[in-house]
């Protein structure tokens, strides 16, 4: 296979990992919203935890994006 073509295919495959991060971030915000509607008074106190969970989950998607960017532009 042409190495350049393999590089682009690899970058595309690496981006699939971001789908998992999308599912995770959606789960976090969805559950936060569901819980906040059940008990709105406690929602504000959990905002920091929400952002922390979001950041940790998003990091994994960002890693796969990074691999894709490295394949496209750096290697």
């Amino acid at each position, binding site marked *: 296979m042409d190495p350049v073509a393999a590089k682009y295919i690899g970058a595309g495959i690496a981006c699939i990992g971001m789908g998992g991060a999308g599912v995770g971030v959606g789960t976090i915000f969805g559950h936060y919203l569901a819980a906040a509607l059940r008990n709105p008074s406690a929602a504000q106190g959990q905002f*920091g935890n929400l*952002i*922390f969970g*979001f*950041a*940790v989950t*998003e*990091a994994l998607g*960002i*890693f796969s*994006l*990074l691999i894709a*960017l490295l394949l496209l*532009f750096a290697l």
Partner: protein
Amino acid sequence: MDPIHQFQIKNLLTFGHIGGHEIAFTNSALFMLIALAVIAALTIGATASRALVPGRMQSVAEMSYEFVADTLRSTAGSEGMKFFPLVFSLFMFILAVNVIGIIPYTFTVTSHIIITVSLALLVFLTVIVYGFYKHGLHFFKLFVPSGIPIYILPLVTFIEVLSFLSRPVSHSVRLFANMLAGHITLKVFGGFVVMLGGLGFLGSLGAILPLGMTVALTALELLVAFLQAYVFAILTCIYLNDAIHPGH
């Protein structure tokens, strides 16, 4: 039309060479100085009058102080307040740099990984140095959670050490990749506008769609710029909390 072109570092003033490396004042340094000037104008200039009933700018300065102080106090406790200058500087610097970067024709300093790695390593080394200074060898308790059955403890400790060591990587790459990806997306949609605009009258009509998308994405980028500064600050607080209270 190259979407990566916007991240190019240009030399504005070249001072000379040290060991084959060029020492120059770049556009990155210029925008860091602009961010510094904005922060100084907000925190020193706006609060210079020390009004009891704050004006508009003084309110912004006081609110940003309270915001960071509340975040730090709720995650790292009142002991963590000795790190307030560090966290506040990091938050304000990243926020100013990110927001300035959204303005067209400016340069986003945080879209270069060397900047974010430097900031993340500063936090990481602060945690290690302060943890050992405050707790000595008890700092290693951070890696050994209590209440874990003895037969899976080695595995858990291994995972804890690994996650501790990957912190500077994820801490820096998150900010860098968010800024990079957002600005590339903006430029790609901007490129669509130009491409469609070159196709004559019908193309110009079609170019309205990506133009609207660019405006919406800019609004999203403003949210991301604030959110990433906040995420960087809150993760700094959480990591500092580990240094202050290493036992789980």
